[in-house]
């Protein structure tokens, strides 16, 4: 079982890196696109944290003044005015400023800043206005397998294989082998340290599946982001927003009577204050909680990537003042240690997202023991231990 699983992983890795060999592109280009200044480094970093239509490892200019790119292309799938159009992103020849025009399905396409534009009929090249917006091209609906989509599919398959093999092992014997020995403690940790104390003994089983999925999804994608493949999936605000919306939907629809009561008509406070509190609680439940979830993950991972890339860029930006060896050594040492911290952050952010999701779900499904509940005036009588949870 273990051998076949690792063979599958090796096969995927071989396919991924094998495709790389076919994807080396020769391209004639002048030297001005080379990274040689702070501006270019900043552009390169900002380009890296965005999603893109191909994997790009590195580029260099050889002695014959040819610009060479290493990476491999991904399929581009577009919904255009002429229906679905698909081609490989290699047809853009790594161009990102709209100068390479691809003709497919009777339409012309150009790629500008990682977005694909459809040219209007009769246009042969993209023209820009003074704010660098394309004037004769419009964005198309883009269903491409981009780098982030590829990463999400890869993690989905990895989790499917890893956890289904782990689940199958429990049918035969109780002690897992191989990968299961790594995953089992983590699964038990999420169940016993995150789900059970925050949601409560009675109801945690129903939500543990979601919490485990979201934990491993974020954790593995965060770790993939530290590999040279350059995934930045959890640093895409759309991905983190989707995850936060999942949590929002789950705690909104599993909220019980007490939860809505505490949002809309808070017991135990004067009546005049209740509508004010209701507005604050509604904003908290529907805006602030999901917004804090999505921004925290997005900002942490993006900031981590920018820091790692900036420290790697030291070997270019400090080359003049420190020499090639000195700047490379400094950059290596700094980026090595920041990468170690990033491995910790990768786990911590997955933990915090799962933890806060569990907490929000727990607040929505919490059962109030009504032996102490409301006295005649509607004031809630409870001891400090019980109300403590309401303030977290």
């Amino acid at each position, binding site marked *: 079982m273990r051998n076949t699983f690792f063979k599958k992983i090796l096969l995927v890795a071989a396919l991924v890196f094998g495709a790389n060999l076919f994807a080396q592109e020769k391209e004639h280009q002048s030297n001005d696109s080379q990274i040689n200044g702070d501006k270019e480094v900043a552009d390169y970093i900002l380009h890296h944290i965005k999603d893109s239509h191909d994997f790009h490892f590195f580029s260099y200019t050889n002695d014959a003044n040819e610009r060479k790119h290493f990476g491999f292309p991904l399929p581009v799938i577009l919904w255009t005015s002429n229906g679905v159009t698909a081609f490989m992103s290699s047809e853009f020849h790594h161009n990102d400023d709209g100068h390479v025009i691809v003709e497919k399905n009777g339409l012309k396409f150009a790629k500008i800043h990682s977005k694909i534009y459809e040219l209007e009929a009769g246009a042969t090249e993209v023209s820009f206005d003074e704010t660098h917006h394309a004037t004769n091209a419009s964005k198309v609906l883009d269903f491409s397998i981009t780098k982030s989509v590829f990463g999400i599919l890869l993690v989905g398959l990895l989790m499917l294989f890893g956890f289904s093999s782990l689940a199958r092992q429990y049918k035969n014997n109780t002690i897992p082998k191989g990968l299961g020995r790594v995953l089992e403690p983590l699964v038990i940790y999420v169940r016993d340290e995150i789900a059970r*104390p925050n949601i409560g003994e009675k109801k945690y089983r129903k939500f543990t599946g979601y919490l485990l999925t979201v934990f491993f999804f974020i954790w593995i994608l965060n770790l993939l982001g530290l590999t040279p493949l350059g995934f930045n999936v959890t640093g895409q605000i759309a991905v983190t927003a989707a995850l936060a919306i999942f949590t929002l939907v789950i705690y909104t629809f599993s909220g019980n009577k007490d939860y809505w009561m505490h949002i809309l008509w808070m017991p135990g406070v004067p009546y005049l204050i209740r509508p004010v509190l209701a507005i604050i609680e509604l904003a908290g439940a529907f805006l602030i909680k999901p*917004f*804090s*979830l999505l*921004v*925290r993950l997005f*900002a*942490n991972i993006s900031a981590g990537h920018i820091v790692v890339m900036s420290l790697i860029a030291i070997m270019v930006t400090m080359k003049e003042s420190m020499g090639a060896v000195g700047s490379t050594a400094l950059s290596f040492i700094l980026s090595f240690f920041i990468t170690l911290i990033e491995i910790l952050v990768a786990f911590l952010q997955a*933990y*915090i997202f799962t*933890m*806060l999701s569990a*907490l929000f779900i727990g607040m929505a499904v919490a059962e109030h023991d009504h032996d102490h509940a409301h006295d005649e005036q509607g004031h809630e009588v409870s001891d400090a231990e019980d109300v403590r949870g309401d303030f*977290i």
Partner: protein
Amino acid sequence: MEPVTYNLIGAGLIVIGAGIGLGQIGGKAMEGIARQPEATGKIQTAMIIIAALLEGLAFGALFLGK
């Protein structure tokens, strides 16, 4: 001054505030753990939640001010 400079000053102020807050949280948690080592797990969990909320606030401010 250019508008960009104001943004940078604002970002600096946010980081100072968040730093003070994180220092308070971490210091008090240490104190709590030293006083009551058997409650380490609970204190750590609460500490991480509060730190995460503070961090969310700081990142939200940086994000909006960008």
